[in-house]
């Protein structure tokens, strides 16, 4: 996979802030067993992290990002056609985790058919169909980012639609 390290670093600095806030918020509840009270919300609080600007994206070239924290690698893609879960003015920007939900191996992006592929056990996911598992062993389709693009073209991730591999809470 082609990488753009500089942009990835910019993104990383941005969302680290959000991740720290989320991490601090979670254990505070867990550390109070004596005073039983409702343990926060039913769902995790997702950070709103700026991952990149539209100008950083090249057509069909994955931009390495992480969400919701730096231990959760993923990519942004500008597919060039409106797709399921697509954000931005053209509805063609998507973001996905790149950890395979089967056994946690890194996925690589095949630009020729817009698919994510796992070298561990050959699972495949379709970037154009909301991460649907084309074929494979994962019992989930590929976790996709909920994206928001603001007036300046900044792309924010604000949620995930499936559980990430290797964590029992998407926000640690």
């Amino acid at each position, binding site marked *: 996979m082609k990488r753009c390290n500089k942009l990835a670093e910019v993104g990383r600095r941005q969302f680290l802030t959000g991740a720290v806030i989320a991490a601090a918020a979670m*254990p505070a509840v*867990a550390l109070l067993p004596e005073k039983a009270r409702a343990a926060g919300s039913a*769902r*995790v609080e*997702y950070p709103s992290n700026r991952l990149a600007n539209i100008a950083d994206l090249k057509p069909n070239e994955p931009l390495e990002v992480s969400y919701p924290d730096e*231990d*959760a690698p993923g990519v942004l893609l500008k597919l060039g056609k409106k797709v*399921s*879960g697509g954000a931005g003015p053209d509805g063609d920007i998507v973001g996905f985790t790149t*950890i395979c*939900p*089967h*056994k*946690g*191996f890194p996925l*690589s*992006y*095949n*630009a*020729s*058919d817009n*698919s994510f*592929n*796992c*070298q*561990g*056990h*050959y*699972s*495949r996911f*379709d970037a*154009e*169909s*909301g*991460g*649907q*598992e*084309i*074929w*494979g*062993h*994962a*019992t*989930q*389709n*590929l*976790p*996709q980012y909920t994206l928001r693009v603001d007036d300046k073209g900044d792309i924010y991730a604000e949620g*995930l*639609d*499936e*559980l990430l*591999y*290797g*964590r*029992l*809470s*998407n*926000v*640690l």
Partner: protein
Amino acid sequence: MAYKRQIDRLPIIPAGAKKHNVVCHYCIVGCGYHAYTWPANKQGGTAPDQNAFAADLSKQQAPETTAWYSPSMYNIVKQDGEDVHIVIKPDHDCVVNSGLGSIRGARMAEMSYSEARSTQQQRLIRPMVWRYGQMQPTSWDDALDLVARVTAQVIKEQGEDGLFVSAFDHGGAGGGYENTWGTGKLYFGAMKIKNIRIHNRPAYNSEVHATRDMGVGELNNCYEDAELADTIVAVGTNALETQTNYFLNHWVPNLRGTSLDKKKKEIPDEPHEEGRIVIVDPRRTVTVNACETEAGKDRVMHLAINSGTDLALFNAWLTYIADQGWTDKDFIEKSTVDFDKAVTGNKTSLEEAAKITGLTVDQIKQSAAWIAEPKDGKRRRTMFSYEKGLIWGNDNYRTNAALVNVALATGNIGREGGGCVRMGGHQEGYVRPSDAHVGRPAAYVDKLLLEGKGGVHHIWACDHYKTTLNAHRFKQNYKKRTDLVKDAMSAVPWGDRTALVNAIMDAIHKGGLFSVDVDIVPTQIGQASHVWLPAATSGEMNLTSMNGERRMRLTERYMDPPGDALPDCLIAARIANNLERVIREGGDEKYADQFKGFDWKTDEDAFMDGYHANAGGGEFVTYERLRAMGTNGFQEPATDFKDGKIVGTKRLFTDGKFGAKDGKAHFMEAQWRGLQAPGKDEQKKKFKYLINNGRTNHIWQSAYLDQENELVMDRWPFPFIQINPDDMAELGVKEGDLVEVYNDDGSTQAMVYPTPTAKKGETFMDFANPTGVVGNVINDGVNELILPNYKQTWADIRKISDAPAVTRGVTFKSPEYSAG
């Protein structure tokens, strides 16, 4: 939009949660799992002392971690009447799967019955009977009394041949040693039922009869042999999709070369390389692609033969290998008979075989060399595997024999890195009284039913409507016969049992059929039935089975059966109790006495009465001992119990003694005779497209549970038919369109899936799908032992609908892994 669960965290398994041994109840491989359960009002925490893994769960876990589970591995189920959390996750210490979970097995928890989370609400939870013009709930006593009275009356009038039975004979869900014994003792012990068939074929017969007749049992090696072989031969088996973790955990290491150290250690005195593989399959499958990815194209031969011509290839291999002197002469001399007879009788030149199979002479020569050419003077080790492509293909008996001939000629049975094995569908779990009375060939049960024979039909976890041949006609006729009885039943008040039974019998005299369906879900054939009896499945009862290397384990009961459901073995026992009662009432004391011996209260009672007392080595095996053996169990047959462990058998026939009466393995003559089953040649001539058929990765068996699973139904809302794009253009169809597949035998429908790797004129359709039964277009021709040929089917195709809206969210990309 792909289906997403919108789950962002899961309850954590607390330290101290209950842990149960589980073996996946779906396919033959039998992957090891554990079921963790804990009270609904408790949860674990992220700190190491708060969870079952002693891991810090506040951190991202590494790939292949033991400390993670997916949402599909979680549910809330009833245990001893209380709601409990459950996680069923793969066991990393099980030698079968080493922590791998398939897309089927890793959904076991999600596919469990849950009131709290509304999963599998289709499950049958109480006995139902045809009453007042519809299926109505009733008690076990009420339902069983009716079943017993009608069954007893039919037997009285027609003899036991008037009772038709369709029953599982395998392991895992809808089977297992307890339940095959329960049904077996009822139908082959108390009675001698002849008109009986198995879940996926129209008669009571072996799918691999030839290998048994040759004295070579079909599960004769161990999974490790796939790691040790120089060459694997895979015939009609798409192992990556249908025996997934056997392939990933034992074939791939050999193809990747990561089992080289094991080869050198276990077989020290000969040269070793990374494995090679010869795949015989008319279709390019994901298995072929994965093998090429791992081993490189130069170590993979995909022999894309003309459909149904395997036999000619195997005979050419035997002929060429014998000519080259690559046979194992010492083994042939000491352990076999009829080698010369087979070589002479089956003689097939490379040129003849090339003409029949569509391969080149060079391909046949090269594959033969990969199988048998000695390596630096040492015998090459080749493992032969086969499954439904052969079993449900042309001329089953002879083709099976022809492959075993090659394995025997090259000395590859009973040796490390060898074996000639079926890959298997379900796990195995067969122990029953003798079936000798069934005869050979066995009765063609579905044909007899179609012809109006029999008065009562007991069905156990079978669905002919989805899994038989000539299914279109079968359905039409079965509905007519059972409707006669339904109408008769609706005409009398339920409470007058004598009048009800008389009305049913009158209808039977007019050609009607009384149908009793025992299952865990409502089936399609069950729509025609008059009584539904709800069964428990694996994990709702203790259940024992063995896998494809004869590895026997106990799945411990980790949850309650839904509602009033009972284990099949106990349903069989209660039917026997009721038959004894009504037959005794009728005054036939002697016949009633035959139904004694069914006083089991538990699954363990059935196990001890059946496996423990009857299976070879069964005396060494108890539930307590199996529990202690965990998910690794032991490999059958058991030979001892020593140092707290059951001692098993890693490979069969290692002493060169085989199963025929003379202790030898018998070569068999098996000449090529073209398309053997009646009607196939005519169908091929008349219709344009081969309708090859089989499985796909997401779906287990006939989708009986998957039809209620969102992940699967989102991916496959309709059964697919893979078609070459040129054929699509000729047919004027696009991806997702619904097409009718039709011929003189029937018609069915499927969703078009563009497949550039499909040969022109050769399609592949999902088998046994509830919304598109390929059996509808499979003609009724069978072999000499009444084995069906599902694979060689020809039909025409026409469009019946544009792609429905639901297909817009479906991907139509190639299933083949490609890193790009």
